[in-house]
């Protein structure tokens, strides 16, 4: 069909041209807004993903669970399409209507993940009303990092944090929620995530005692490393697990990691779509892309974390792991933690 170029069609083309240009620009400008932890969206992966989809991926990295909550809740899910969140935190996002369930048909790679992550109904917290609100991606345990020169034999229990021997040589983590949970495990309380008022009072006293043994409370792994370098530090409550271990070893620290006998709290990070997701297909393509064996392998090599597709040695076969859960009252724990910190 050859169209004779008349003045009229030429005019038509001239008028249509900006519209055509606009639409192709709109496609090229397709953008995925990702919120992730460092290590979950490396530059080479982003580059490959962008080449595959023709979209651009804009990643905002976060440093704490609270930051994710503040950003997602603060914008009612509108500022991001897909975000990394752990299963403990996930519930309040689902409760708050801040997530969109996944379409598993768009995630073929999820069929080939490790057995324990394959049946999503068996993974605590990711399903709601038969719908998967999050896809497991990465996990790790929160045990103890110890300096091999200063702690011998290696610690096997969280009680080491209360040991007078290490007074002023301990780095703890600045977060009431986790501190109450691990102290509950230390005290032998069966469910560390749902504490009675009585248990809380007991734990508060115990934590106040730990505070007096602590050099400082840190919030980021870099901060802990810097504190370790310029101080006499023997024990670190390793909130960032293997990531922290790797960074410290890379920096030449003579340290080792151990999961204590009481059981280490362990987190499981997932990918969830926000309620404000603009392009579901693109967001699912991102998640499916990251569930490749190659990416899982690289993720573990680079961060030391366990991934959901390839077996790794993130935790020993006999190590007891206690999967983190939403706690009974985070505000209460935060308030009590403030009270502990305010004590002289």
């Amino acid at each position, binding site marked *: 069909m050859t169209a004779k170029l008349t003045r009229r069609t030429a005019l038509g083309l001239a008028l249509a041209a900006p519209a055509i240009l606009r639409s192709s620009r709109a496609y090229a400008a397709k953008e995925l807004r990702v919120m992730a932890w460092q290590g979950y969206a490396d530059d080479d992966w982003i580059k490959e993903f962008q080449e595959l989809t023709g979209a651009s991926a804009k990643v905002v990295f976060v440093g704490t669970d*609270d930051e994710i909550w503040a950003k997602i809740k603060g914008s009612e899910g509108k500022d991001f399409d897909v975000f990394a969140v752990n299963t403990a935190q996930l519930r309040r996002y689902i409760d708050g209507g801040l997530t969109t369930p996944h379409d598993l048909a768009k995630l073929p790679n999820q069929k080939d993940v490790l057995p324990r992550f394959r049946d999503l109904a068996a993974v605590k917290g990711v399903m709601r009303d038969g719908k998967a609100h999050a896809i497991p991606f990465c996990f790790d345990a929160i045990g103890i990092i110890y300096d091999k020169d200063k702690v011998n034999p290696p610690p096997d229990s969280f009680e080491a944090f209360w040991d007078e021997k290490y007074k002023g040589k301990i780095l703890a983590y600045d977060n009431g929620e986790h501190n109450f949970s691990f102290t509950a495990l230390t005290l032998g309380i069966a469910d560390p995530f749902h504490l009675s008022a009585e248990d809380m009072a007991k734990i508060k006293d115990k934590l106040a005692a730990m505070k007096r043994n602590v050099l400082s409370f840190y919030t980021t792994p870099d901060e802990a490393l810097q*504190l370790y370098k*310029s101080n006499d530090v023997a024990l670190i409550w390793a909130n960032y697990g293997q990531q922290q271990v790797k960074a410290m070893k890379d920096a030449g620290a003579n340290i080792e990691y151990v999961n204590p006998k009481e059981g280490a709290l362990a987190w499981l990070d997932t990918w969830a779509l926000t309620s404000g997701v603009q392009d579901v297909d693109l967001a699912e393509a991102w998640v499916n892309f990251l569930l490749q064996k190659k990416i899982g392998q690289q993720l573990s090599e680079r961060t030391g974390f366990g991934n959901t597709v390839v077996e790794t040695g993130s935790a020993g076969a006999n190590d007891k792991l206690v999967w983190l859960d939403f706690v009974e009252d985070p*505000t209460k724990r*935060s*308030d009590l933690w*403030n009270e502990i*910190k305010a004590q002289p």
Partner: protein
Amino acid sequence: MIFAGSARSGPAPRLLAVFAYGLPLIFIGAPLLSFLAYSVFTMADGQIVAGFSLSNYQRFFTGAIFLPVLWQTCLLCLAVAALATAIGFPVAFLLAQMKGRRRYFLLLMVLVPLLMSYIIKIYAIRSILGGNGFLNRFLLWTGVIGEPLTLFVFNLNAVLLTLTVLLIPFAILPIFLSLERIPSSYIEASSDLGASNLQTFARIVLPLSLPGIVTAATFVFVLAIGDFLTPQMVGGQNGFTFGRIVYSQFGTAFNWPFGAALAVILAVVVIAVIALGGRLERRHA
């Protein structure tokens, strides 16, 4: 309104007035008002409930930690203000004594740290203060001490020291300006009349620079009391200040209304201090 005199007629002054009053209203007034509004809201099941309630303020006055921590924070910041002013005064005095280009060059040098990122400065100070930080290693090396000092390692002393170091430039500037404004004829007259240097300093220079000193102390106090990062970074297990509590309400606790109420209380303290400073200044001006 610096151009008001040159363009007395036409729409320009009015436009300028709109900007002069409008911008502060939008960028200062409105956020403060929203804080005030949030502070009377409440939380229920993780959601912010709009409505009028004074329960947040009630909690501030009845809670076990809030008033004591605020009081300790005020004392800490008073100490920071006193230290920064005490250290800033001689520096400003020396600068004001200098002549010509050199004095403005050195003044600029004093202000250079303000161009650096605040967090980088804290990090730097932290590696100086640590148990085997620069200071301790230096003192050990010189043989002044036998084993590392813990005096400035992650406690309130460290917060005091760090805040002082960070805020000294804010103390130097107003003092320098007030010293510079003292006419040299006063000082000449004083010595002509037989006063010693010390007498001239005590009877002429110091009283005339008092407004600058008060401004400096007010500046430093206000900046220190709003700081929540320094106590976290160098305060260790004891560095808990009011700013930390406010901060935690917006993060961990996700209790914005209570955080807003605490911020309003902090604002009241700050406004009171500024008002007091202003009054003192007027009395000495």
